[in-house]
């Protein structure tokens, strides 16, 4: 096949305007694209796949045959964000994470927001992610979520919304970096023609954030992974290497005399900061799940004495829960005395009988999510569901209404991707990674996830979603 043509789009497309012209930020890229042919891009896509396989940029899928490694589909067309849009997103994400950290500090100390009547107490204390042991523990810089992933989307009008906050162990940042490396390898000429803001320094910023998360100068920082069968193991190894820190498993650490040590070839070595990619419940078999083989016996007691830093802190999950999400804009007003820069998606909390009635009456139009769910599991996408699926979901909703929230089906913005037939629009979202140390900051970009099949709104990599490079164009470069 020969030259490439742009598809018609409906709704908000990141690149293409109705009528076929392209947005300003894409003009430079489009000029380059006009000079490409179908077979050329096909070859580049094959080259990328081969390279990803060789480098081992794979992830493990739960529930499939053990050791199954899959590639996350990579799309070679970049998603471009103009500098002005980015600045607003950046400010909005920082504002949001600052408020969430203040919220976590508050609920584990004075609970001012509850006493002020701005948030029902049971939403916090009845939450499975709430950790009573964290009460009155003072953390350096008052930071709970050192690494936060704020998922944002644009709707059909092009307005940005925050879809959810990820304050536990958000993943995907390695793909942000590897996608950029891949693009620079495949299409070096693109990067000499336009000034794309760099993202490769993320590991340095992350290390800085971790180092300043404790009170000790020159702390020993390690990354705690559940091990190589974890779906995100590649990322754990990648980040540890990029930061030059040890990648440890639970069995590599031990607790003695109120301190944490790792077992090394030169004897025990004290550990000050643990960037843990293990969930709260699995951190310490003595204090939490006794059947966990992933954690370190006694770790929690050391943590509560302030002799080791966990990033993220214990108990951050109460801040990113879908039942807390509706209150975040109000948190921003309460703690920062500012108006939210980024909007929430309107949300019905099914625990409220009126909201439940509304949701039950409009199921085919709504997206219903489990309050504690993640990874796109256990959700209903009304417009895409069959009548039988909706009926079954209705029963589950009636049985445990407090377990669900519902949101309107936003027609997520699309972005062109390269498919076998040529260029076609697909729905996307964006996860920028916010780092909170002495200050709160992020690298310009994030992980753009793509629903690979036409019309689909599910971008999760565990369900076949793909990724593409995300360009923040610096001013005056289009």
């Amino acid at each position: 096949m020969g030259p490439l043509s742009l598809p018609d789009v409906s709704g908000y497309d990141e690149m293409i305007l109705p009528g076929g012209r392209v947005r300003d930020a894409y003009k430079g890229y489009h000029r380059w694209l006009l000079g490409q042919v179908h077979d050329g891009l096909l070859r580049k896509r094959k080259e990328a796949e081969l390279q990803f396989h060789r480098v081992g940029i794979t992830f493990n899928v739960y529930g499939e045959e053990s050791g199954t490694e899959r590639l996350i589909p990579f799309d070679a067309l970049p998603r471009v964000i103009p500098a002005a849009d980015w600045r607003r997103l950046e400010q909005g994400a920082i504002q949001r994470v600052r408020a969430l950290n203040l919220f976590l500090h508050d609920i584990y100390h004075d609970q001012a927001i509850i006493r002020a009547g701005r948030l029902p107490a049971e939403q916090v204390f009845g939450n499975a992610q709430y950790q009573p042991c964290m009460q009155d523990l003072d953390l350096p810089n008052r930071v709970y979520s050192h690494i936060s992933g704020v998922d944002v989307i644009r709707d059909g009008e092009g307005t940005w919304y925050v879809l959810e906050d990820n304050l536990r162990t958000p993943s995907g940042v390695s793909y942000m970096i590897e996608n950029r490396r891949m693009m620079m390898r495949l299409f070096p000429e693109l990067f000499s023609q336009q000034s794309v803001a760099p993202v490769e320094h993320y590991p340095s910023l992350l290390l800085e954030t971790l180092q300043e998360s404790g009170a000790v100068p020159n702390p020993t920082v390690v990354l705690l992974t559940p091990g190589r069968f974890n779906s995100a193991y590649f990322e754990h190894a990648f980040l540890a290497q990029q930061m030059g820190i040890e990648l440890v498993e639970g069995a590599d650490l031990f607790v003695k005399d109120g301190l944490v040590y790792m077992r090394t070839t030169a004897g025990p070595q004290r550990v000050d900061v643990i960037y843990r990619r293990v969930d709260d419940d699995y951190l310490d078999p003595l204090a939490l799940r006794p059947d966990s083989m992933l954690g370190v016996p006694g770790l929690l007691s050391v943590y509560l004495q302030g002799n080791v830093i966990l990033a993220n802190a214990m108990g951050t999950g109460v801040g990113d829960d879908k039942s807390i999400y509706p209150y975040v804009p109000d948190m921003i007003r309460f703690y920062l005395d500012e108006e939210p820069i980024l909007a929430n998606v309107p949300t019905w909390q099914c625990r409220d009988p009126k909201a439940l009635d509304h949701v039950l009456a409009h199921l085919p139009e709504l997206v219903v999510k489990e309050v504690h769910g993640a990874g796109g599991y256990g959700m209903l996408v009304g417009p895409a569901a069959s009548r039988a699926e909706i009926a079954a979901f209705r029963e589950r909703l009636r049985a445990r209404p407090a377990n669900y929230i519902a949101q309107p089906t936003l027609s997520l913005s699309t972005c062109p991707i390269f498919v076998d037939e040529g260029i076609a629009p697909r729905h996307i979202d964006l996860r920028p990674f916010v780092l909170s140390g002495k200050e709160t900051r992020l690298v310009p970009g994030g992980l753009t996830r793509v629903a690979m099949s036409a019309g689909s709104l599910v971008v999760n990599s565990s369900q076949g979603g793909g990724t593409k490079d995300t360009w923040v164009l610096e001013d005056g470069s289009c």
Partner: protein
Amino acid sequence: MLSRTAADLYWLSRYFERAENTARMLDVAWNLSLIPFAVDAREEITAPLIITGSREAYEAAHDDIRVDEVMHFFTLDDGNPGSIFHCLRAARESAHAVRGKITAEMWESVNSTWLELREIRAQGLEGYGASEFFDWVKNRSHLFRGATYGTSMRNDAFRFLRLGTFIERADNTARILDVKHQIGGFDGDGAVDFYRWHALLRSVGAYEAYREIYSEPINSERVSELLILRPEVPRSLRSCMQMLCELLPAIEGQAGQQSKRLAAVQFARLQYGDLDHIVDTGLHEYLTDFLRRVNELADTIRQEYLEVV
């Protein structure tokens, strides 16, 4: 360095080295079994089973010793923990566990080896060609070693990788050399024995070294001297022990006193050893004692560095 990381690095290179040496050993057996006037092709092909101590395991799963079945057993058989397939998978798993401690090029050489091996396995050894397969294994090992040598920092990670290489190589060279004891009628000066020594030297890449050092025809005493005592030959027992003696003291920290001592003692025995002593002791007895000492050293390294409590 984390003890677990050190263990994975050590086993990564041990398994890769074992895969390479297995290929070298099989290459000899395969070539000898093809020689038309070989006394008995079965005898040649039994040697690898004896050398590696896997005769019982083989016989448990096979009715008869057949060339193609022994070849399969050592190359692509998933059920044999000593097969090349198994070694390269274990090497890849170790590498995966220390993905962050090795360079991208080292990882890629291990990972692409594994990916290609899976394709070769789908084809089968006959489809791919036995000699081609042995060359492929050797080349992949060269590539991994080259990537390691050319890109790895000279730190403890590098040292534990090298440690695994030389422990395994010392063990394997001793076993290959002991083949003389394992095959009946292998002591004369007949044409078949010439082929055997010739093939053995080629298998460890030391044929050229022999030619350069000795002007006499290939014979068992000179081959023994070359592969046990000569410092210039990189697969000789002496070279392996010398490397171990240099590596162990360079590892950071005060651990490993016993390992260093065992390595130094064994190196001194080789450094100041002579051929007459080996001949008097008997080659098989000498090599058996050496293997016992290497195993003791490997065990001590494990206790002192790799499984620290």
